[in-house]
């Protein structure tokens, strides 16, 4: 029986091709826009994250100094005691992370951790003659740093691996080098807050396209940094951790913070603005596409209603001949679903092509030379299911109405 119902649906779909095409275009447009916009927003977000993760780790462990002791009174006092506080001071505390080797081993045993590298970070002044710029000197393990952040790919001059062989070599961010008016083989003077001063030779320049990084950051071999600061060979200020899924950091942070006596911070926490922004883009794109789909669904609803009003006599005849309400529902719902499936498939194809074409258009800005696009099966599947659900609902309501038609009323009039 179903075969006959499908056949009737097919005849109705092809008998009025213009209506069918209009409905089809609505769904196609909705799905293609959905796919395209999600591709674009996901592409932008992934691009931004990729850029960001050349300098930020997914999770960072660092020693933040002693705990906040600005409120000494409420902790120590009770209602009856009189407190006299004089000349409060921060007493000497240990900087850096104790026993980093053990901690690294612990971290590497966590299932989601894909890489760990230690750093000695120190806030410094960079000087070249009268030019003085505040910045951050990062003492790094050359190979490990590159494995995690692929920083070698961002070198505009010099060679990342030279850090291994040249203990007095420094690699500067491109903006920092420019502000200092230095290039390869020039000398730069580094001054720490403790008054330690050191002369270093520029052996490379990198460019991440993140303004704040390129303008303030410099890399040095981790051992040279320890020597410069007169620290021992295991001194570490930061542990940079990469995980397999950067979106999921909370459970690991949760676990670590109970055993690690230092600050454990995910990129989501340290870059809340970026995180919020990427979430917002995503939401806006989904909302807009969803609205388009809804409009398309409304279009289908209208067209189906029209069709049913036109065919009301034929529905009455079918019922008079013995077709049940369910048969009628199937006949009209099939039409809507065919439109939904066809519109979905064509829409996904058009959305993909649109993204592909837009990706080919040159677009120079910062690190970009074309607009970033991401093509994820999951997004396509989502668009298709959304489209199908919309057409199902849009088709079901008029189809139910058709199923409830009383044949005598129509035939008598």
């Amino acid at each position: 029986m179903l075969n006959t119902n499908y056949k009737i649906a097919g005849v109705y779909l092809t008998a009025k091709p213009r209506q069918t095409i209009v409905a089809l275009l609505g769904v196609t447009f909705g799905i293609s826009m959905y796919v395209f916009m999600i591709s674009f927003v996901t592409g932008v977000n992934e691009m931004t994250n990729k850029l960001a993760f050349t300098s930020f780790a997914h999770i960072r462990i660092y020693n933040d100094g002693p705990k906040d002791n600005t409120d000494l009174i409420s902790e120590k006092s009770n209602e009856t005691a009189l407190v006299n506080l004089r000349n409060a001071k921060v007493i000497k505390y240990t900087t850096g992370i104790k026993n980093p080797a053990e901690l690294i081993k612990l971290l590497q045993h966590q299932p989601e951790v894909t890489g760990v590298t230690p750093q000695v970070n120190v806030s410094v002044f960079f000087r070249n003659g009268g030019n003085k710029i505040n910045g951050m000197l990062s003492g790094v393990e050359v190979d490990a740093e590159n494995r995690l952040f692929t920083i070698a790919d961002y070198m505009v001059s010099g060679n990342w691996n030279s850090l291994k062989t040249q203990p007095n070599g420094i690699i500067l961010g491109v903006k920092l080098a420019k502000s200092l008016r230095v290039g390869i083989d020039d000398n730069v003077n580094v001054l720490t807050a403790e008054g330690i001063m050191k002369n270093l030779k520029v052996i490379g320049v990198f460019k991440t396209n993140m303004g704040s990084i390129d303008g303030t950051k410099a890399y040095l071999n981790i051992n040279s940094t320890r020597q410069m600061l007169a620290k021992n060979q295991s001194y570490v200020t930061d542990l940079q951790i990469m995980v397999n899924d950067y979106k999921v950091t909370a459970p690991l942070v949760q676990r670590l913070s109970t055993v690690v006596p230092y600050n454990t911070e995910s990129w989501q926490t340290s870059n809340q603005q970026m995180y919020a922004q990427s979430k917002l883009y995503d939401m806006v794109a989904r909302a807009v596409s969803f609205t388009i789909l809804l409009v398309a669904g409304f279009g289908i609803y209208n067209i189906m209603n029209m069709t049913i009003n036109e065919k009301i006599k034929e529905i009455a005849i079918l019922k008079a001949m013995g077709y049940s309400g369910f048969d009628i529902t199937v006949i009209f719902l099939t039409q809507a679903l065919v439109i939904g499936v066809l519109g979905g498939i064509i829409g996904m194809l058009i959305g993909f092509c649109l993204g592909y074409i837009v990706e080919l258009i040159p677009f120079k800005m910062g690190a970009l030379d074309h607009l970033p696009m991401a093509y994820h099966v999951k997004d396509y599947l989502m668009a298709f299911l959304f489209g199908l659900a919309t057409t199902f609902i849009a088709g079901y309501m008029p189809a139910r109405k058709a199923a409830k038609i009383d044949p005598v009323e129509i035939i008598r009039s």
Partner: protein
Amino acid sequence: MEKKIALKANHLVKYFNQPEPFQVLKDLSFEVKSGEFLSLTGKSGSGKSTLLYILSTMDTAYGGELTINGIKLTGKSQDQLAAFRNEHIGFVFQFHYLLPEFTALENIMLPALKLKKKSREEIKEKAYQHLKLLGIEEQALKLSGKLSGGQQQRVAIARALINDPSIIMGDEPTGNLDSKNTQVVFDIFRELSEVYGQTIITVTHDDDFAKNTDRIIEMSDGRLC
């Protein structure tokens, strides 16, 4: 009479409320025997079509009781009645309603495709036989919307016969046919009732047609007379 009762109407009453409350059918009771060829006559507006819609189970808003082939149909659900109609009742409307976007052949096949007692090929074969019998086999593959009024009416008759229903009802089924084709339809109905024992109930204004049937029921102002 030893013949079985095909249809039994018991105190049928029907009201229309639309322009104003109005009783169309006033307590109709009668029986139709199996294999009987019955004609229903009466002036326009006397309630023939209204009665036929009730007898065909399409109209359920009536008082009284309807029994066909020993099955009480009053009070059954729409879907149950649809299934019953599909198998047991063939109906020819006063205005030969066909599905215009389907061919004549497909229109005839539709009730049988729903019933699903025969294969598609058998159904097609049978539909062709009916078309031939009614002299319109060349029109088989034309869209029914493109046929003349007389041709459409014959397609509608063929459609009513396709499932070998035990009762065939027609509301002026020959109203659009010339005397030659009217005679063809009459002969078909006669054969169906005599040879195959199918019950025929037709509304007609054609006195010659009515005279040759087994029995005439005349209606006047919602009553039998």
